[in-house]
């Protein structure tokens, strides 16, 4: 199955944009086309941060729609890509959070820290109002500690299983207790009356621990740096890094003081980032944002992300969404084709006068297999007596259904 580059420079640029933003459009691709690898990477990594912030209201839909708008318009989009990555790694569910103002507040916190320092980001997450409510920290007191947040902090957000004991979970739950969210101001504060200021033994050290020192200690573990770096590698490159390489990358990242930009830059400079096209499936939200970007979908159609199985701030559980080939299972394909068929291509500017090349350009498909291209070209409607517009309708749907468009 021959994948062919329609234009080598655009092919590289498309790969970089596709994997470092939530966009695929020609403008974004043109912005890095023709640059040397190092220059292109620098441009992506060091793009000025977006100062825009989601509106904080009791309707978290509005905040998420605001984000969709930014995704379509930001000059580079690495900030959006990383915001999505952190949300999938450390998710909260907006209905479980309850107070919707907290959702937008968390979005803005993640947006601000998406390319900053991992330690800072994680510290902020642990005293984030939405997280406190999502993982039952609100109810956790020194007298009756709730282990939920402490457990997930270790199992999902830092070292992963195998590096801590149940005793560590209990100790951390005590040390992290006492944080609450005010129901009127939504301010997060620590109440010493509800906390626990006695010594506990955590990772073999008996002393008075608190939330901040627990998070710090976990961030100091190489297991944390390796695990998070490995996850980012998969997210950006699309293939799994071996255990040894993960460890090496983790140690290197620790030396960078867990700064996020250098880690991203290092991954983008790796040959493997550039080698394999279409290494992993687009997840539901990635597919939806790519589609929205190409077709200029109205953010009001956000519910379609739900139909595609990945509504932000509505994860199936605290472990986040699954990754991998399940995004290409029959259910995903049916849902994706349904959205593709629901679009009125007459309403998409220029869509029904485009050539196949223009369709591919607009979809960011600068690398395409002979078979897919042949399949798209195979429909001419002559036998069926279909007019030119009908044929183009079908060509668009095929391009957007193609493996090339469904993969990262």
């Amino acid at each position, binding site marked *: *199955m*021959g*994948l062919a580059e329609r234009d080598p420079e655009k092919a590289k640029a498309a790969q970089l944009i596709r994997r470092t933003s939530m966009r695929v459009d020609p403008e974004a691709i043109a912005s890095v086309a023709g640059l040397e690898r190092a220059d292109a990477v620098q441009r992506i990594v060091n793009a000025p941060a977006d100062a825009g912030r989601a509106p904080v209201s009791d309707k978290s839909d509005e905040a998420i729609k605001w984000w969709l708008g930014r995704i379509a318009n930001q000059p580079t989009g690495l900030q959006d890509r990383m915001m999505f990555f952190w949300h999938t790694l450390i998710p909260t*569910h907006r*209905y*479980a959070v309850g107070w919707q103002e907290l959702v937008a507040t968390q979005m803005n916190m993640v947006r601000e820290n998406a390319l900053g320092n991992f330690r800072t980001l994680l510290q902020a997450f642990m005293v984030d109002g939405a997280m406190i409510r999502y993982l039952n920290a609100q109810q956790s007191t020194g007298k009756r500690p709730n282990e939920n947040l402490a457990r997930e902090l270790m199992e999902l957000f830092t070292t992963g299983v195998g590096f801590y004991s149940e005793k560590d979970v209990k100790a951390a739950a005590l040390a992290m207790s006492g944080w609450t969210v005010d129901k009127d101001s939504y301010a997060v504060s620590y109440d010493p009356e509800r906390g626990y200021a006695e010594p506990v033994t955590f990772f073999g050290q008996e002393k008075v621990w608190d939330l901040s020192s627990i998070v710090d200690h976990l961030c100091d573990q190489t297991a944390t740096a390796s695990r998070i770096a490995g996850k980012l590698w998969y997210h950006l490159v699309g293939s799994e890094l071996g255990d040894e390489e993960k460890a090496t990358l983790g140690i290197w990242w620790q030396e960078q003081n867990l700064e996020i930009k250098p880690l991203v830059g290092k991954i983008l400079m790796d040959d493997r980032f550039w080698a*394999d*096209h*279409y*290494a*992993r*499936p687009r997840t539901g939200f990635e597919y939806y944002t790519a589609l929205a970007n190409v077709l200029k979908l109205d953010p009001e159609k956000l519910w379609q992300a*739900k*139909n595609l*199985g990945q509504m932000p701030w509505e994860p*199936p*559980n605290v*472990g986040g969404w*699954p990754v991998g*080939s399940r995004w*290409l*299972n*029959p*259910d*995903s*394909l*049916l*849902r994706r*084709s*349904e959205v593709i*068929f629901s679009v009125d291509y007459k309403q998409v500017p220029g869509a029904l006068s485009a050539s196949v090349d223009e369709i591919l350009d607009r979809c960011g498909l600068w690398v*395409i*297999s*002979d*078979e*897919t291209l*042949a*399949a*798209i070209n*195979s*429909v001419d*409607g002559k036998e*069926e007596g*279909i007019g030119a517009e*009908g044929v183009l*309708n*079908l060509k668009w*749907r*095929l391009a957007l*259904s*193609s*493996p*090339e468009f*469904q*993969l990262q």
Partner: protein
Amino acid sequence: MSQISQPNEPGDIHGERPDPTAQMPAPGVSAQPPPPSNPAAPTTPPPPAHRDSTAVMPQPGMIPAGPSDRTDAMNSQALADQAAHYQASSECFDCDGHGNGYGELAYGTAMDDKARAEARARVQKVPRRRFLKGAAAVGTLGYGVFRGSGAGDKSLISSQSPFASKVVDVSGTNPAVSTANVVTQNVETVVTDFIEVANELLVPAPVEQRVLVLIELAGGNDGPSMIVPYGDGAYYDARPNTAVEAESVLPIDSQVGLAPGLAAIANRQIATVEGVGPVEGVLSHFEMAERWERGDLTGAAGERSGFLARLADRVNTGGSSVSGLSVAGHTPRFYNSESPTLSLNHPSQLRVLTNDDWIYPLYRSAVRGFGGGPMAATMSESWDRLFDIGDSISGNIGEMDGDSAMIQQGRQLGRQLFMAAELIKADIGIKVIHAQLGGFDTHEGHRGRHNQLMETLGAAINGFMGMLDAAGLGNRALVATSSEFGRRLKQNGSGLDHGAASSMLLAGPIVPGRHGDPSPLTDLDRNGNLKTTISFDRYLATLAEEWLGIESGSVLANGPKGIGLF
């Protein structure tokens, strides 16, 4: 018309509340449904039309008119004498030879030895499973002379049932019935009717053909509003203006009955499981819904996949195209399944696979030609599976009858179960189905809203079972409800707050009657909520193990025991 919903119709030969305006042709002879052409020959009743809403049980007119039909004409001594006689001449049938599951047949005085022997011989020919079901069904309807032990036991004798007068209590455990309702009957008729009922009841299909349809009643369904404890004063004390009126309840026995909204399924094969709920529950929708989704009783098992996902994996031994189906769109219940699952909101979503307007066939043909690197092969397999499904579905799946009661009254749930029935008929290996009806979070206006929801539920289930019956597949599907929690016993204004234990409803080839253990209304938990008598993971284990044949421990933490429904 459902007979159960018409407790005071003239056919009620017990005559406790006679309708003065009714035109009764003769005392004790039913005027409606149409009287038999020859009331004098009631021993050869027409066979009941199976599953017709008016005819699962024999018609009132089949009961012969006789001097004892009117109990007010009998003095209490005569009743007691007669009761003693029935007791003395009852006979036990030990159907499995182990004392489990038996029926008891009481012989009428009018029966001679020969007729008695014939009746016995005929009853003995009824297979055990059907015997039990028949006994329980007859009992549920308050009609018959059979006492089924075990699951059916509680439900047999009903003094409140409109058919109570036809009950002969041979158990001696219900004095009210045995003295007031013992009537002389032609037992031959009852035996005939019993055998009809027993033989017409659905017996489960072989386990590999069975389908579980779990309907999530989202928002927290109040148990006592669905399975109404109309015989318990505590219920009415706690709910001055949110209770279901006793007169409108469709009795199951003298204690509980179905909500009037469920009239559409009252004469179907249905069962209740009462007292189902959490252990150390909380009052958060999200938390409790998630525990049910994952089959995680306390939320501490750390499950990351849905309970139905694990079931879908375990039942898919033949590598079917799709073993799990959500007809309520994407649901966490199927998250992280290995086996392919499908999620739909509307049948029109299948048109990509089934529609023959020009663009769809061309699309289907073209996507089969896609290339695109190593991962494209995975996609190609998925397309093939989808096209297999499309080939198996009849082209009319998009053509719901919008005027049918299933859609009109069944609303969104009716649409969902329509899709479910069509896909079961397509026979593509679907064994686990998730549906959802929302709106149960009735903090205000509980009575009216809940009644409406029950009508929706009843119409949707009735339509679903009817579709399967018509296709000869009625014995394959078990419909079972779930809900994140019940609601508080004591009302709050016009509504009910979040609670704990609730009742579950099942429909399909099941032993009809009451199961589980009702939560006492006078012994509440510290929040004033109904206490759990059956932890919800045991309920799920029952569905997994006893219905689908999937070992509980392979899909639920700690392998909880089922409650013995099948």
